[in-house]
């Protein structure tokens, strides 16, 4: 028994070791370095010796503009997540429960396609679609020639469109996985018990797919809150997010410690939101 246990432990170590080693080296170490950096009074690029300070965190509290940016970022994350859910969930439902065989594979390919293109190229391609006189504008004028000129580029909706495009596959894939895990006989049981489609979805299918919905939401919300490239390219000045401010501190102002402090504040806010939602989510998913 003890020998078997030991061998088991060895196997577990051998299987998980590489992944954890990689995560330690690539995430934990740089992140710790950045956390340390956020407490320095000078950028590490400056040759003079630096001392420890809390002034960057104090600056966030003293300057409402950054708090406003944080709120906008969180709101953007929420809007993008909800849009992905509204668009992605029905697709996942169709893929998991309606479409079968070869068609399913073809549809999956289309879902995963955005992953295969470069994020920057993808985002810039949207500028050609959304700019005045762009593809979206032309398309609308074919249908309604008298419609006013569409000018979506450099607006909040443009940022949302770009981010939803990037992150939608996550929602479709996670929801698909939990939806296709629902046994068809459970759905049949609900129908045999008298449930119409509405009650079937509300009381059985959706609650049982919650793990996928939540996993997808977490996978989308976190990077969407921290996004800076899509807001910069598609939102211009209107799309200001905390992510853009962080990027600016690193690349323009060269104030690394302040940039680091802002990004840790953002991480903290996201973690707090996840922690606050965790108990309720856990309760809803009991038994699944």
């Amino acid at each position, binding site marked *: 028994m003890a020998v078997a246990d030991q061998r088991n432990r060895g196997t577990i170590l051998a299987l998980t070791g590489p992944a954890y080693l990689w995560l330690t080296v690539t995430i934990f170490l740089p992140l710790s370095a950045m956390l340390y950096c956020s407490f320095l009074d000078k950028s590490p690029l400056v040759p003079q010796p630096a001392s420890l300070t809390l002034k960057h965190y104090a600056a966030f509290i003293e300057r409402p503009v950054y708090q406003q940016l944080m709120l906008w970022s969180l709101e953007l994350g929420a809007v993008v997540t909800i849009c992905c859910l509204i668009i992605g969930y029905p697709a996942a439902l169709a893929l998991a429960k309606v479409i079968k065989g070869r068609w399913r594979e073809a549809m999956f390919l289309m879902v995963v396609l955005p992953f295969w293109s470069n994020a920057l190229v993808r985002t810039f391609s949207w500028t050609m679609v959304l700019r005045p006189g762009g593809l979206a504008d032309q398309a609308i004028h074919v249908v309604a020639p008298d419609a006013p000129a569409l000018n979506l580029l450099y607006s909040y909706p443009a940022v949302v469109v770009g981010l939803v495009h990037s992150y939608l596959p996550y929602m479709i894939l996670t929801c698909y996985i939990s939806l296709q895990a629902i*046994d068809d*006989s*459970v759905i*049949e*049981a*609900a*129908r*045999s*018990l*008298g*449930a*119409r489609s509405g*009650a079937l979805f509300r*009381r*059985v299918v959706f*609650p*049982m797919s*919650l793990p996928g919905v939540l996993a997808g939401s977490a996978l989308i919300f976190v990077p969407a809150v921290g996004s800076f490239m899509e807001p910069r390219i598609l939102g211009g000045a209107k799309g200001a997010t905390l992510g853009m401010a962080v990027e600016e501190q690193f690349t323009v102002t060269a104030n690394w410690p302040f940039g680091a402090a802002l990004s840790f504040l953002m991480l903290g806010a996201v973690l707090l939101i996840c922690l606050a939602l965790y108990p309720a989510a856990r309760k*809803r*998913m*009991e*038994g*699944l």
Partner: protein
Amino acid sequence: MSTVTVTDAVKKYDAVAALDSVTMTFREGELFGLLGPSGSGKTTLLRAIAGFVSLDRGQVLIDGQNVGGVPVHARNIGMMFQNYALFPHMSVAENVAFGLEVRGRPREEVARRVNEALAMVRLGGLEQRKPKQLSGGQQQRVALARALVTRPKVLLLDEPLGALDKHLRQEMQVELRRIQRQVGITTIFVTHDQEEALTLSDRIAIFNFGRIIQEGAPMEVYERPVTKFAAGFLGEANFLQGRVTAIEPNGLARVALDLGGEALCRLIGGQAGQTVLLALRPEKIKLSTDSQAGTNAVRGKVLDVVFSGNSTTYRVRVGNQVITLFRQNLAQGTVAPGSEVVLSWSPDHLVQVTP
């Protein structure tokens, strides 16, 4: 209580007929077992009655009403699935309450009927558990309570006991029978387990290739199978081929058996010269070491002997055929392989079947 009638039901998947012109009636309050190998159409019939399968031709009538256009949720049927199909995110009480709540019953009524249903399946006290926290037998009871709480017209069971181990299965068979009698609901169940079908059912039907091979009371179907398939599928059988040599004045036919020897048996409208196939159940054969071969008694040599507690299985070579027989263990000891023996039977136990 309701009657269910199926008339001329046809369902094809590609070119294969899952149901090939099936007509049958399920009587009020009876427990009816649909038996057959997988792919024989029994499950398709059950699902057609439930409304999950739409027929290519023919009708399903519940209490004389064609339910062809009625969707599943409006058919008022109770269905139990092989894997129970409980809602994992709901408690036992919520699972049972589901059918009443989607019907919009008032809350007090729901609570009262859920309690009654759980008491009926003897699960009081487990209301707040989640399905995962229950044993297989308990999950089964929840599924049964959930299917019955809405007082459906018909109860449909798809391999109801297939996922349970042997002891629990026997216990649940008794339980299922008790509850079914108590509620008095017309019940149709699908099984590939012949013993389960024989034990539980008031009547059974044997399916093969989408057709009913035979239907009737379990004992009738077991004792008087009409085809070789029915005889071989429900229980075990030896098949003896022979040619009728004469019809006796008392109506019994003399048959020269292909394996050697002569049999005397009752035929339906046989005439001399005709070839016949006779089924003979292993437990009806008497094995002895000290009697003579003759009519309905053939000489053979024991090939092997398998002791299985309450009975012993012998395989005996007779002519060019191997005959299987069961012998009750009445402390007479076993006959060793290689022994010369005589197998005999009564004329009533030879049943003429169509090949």
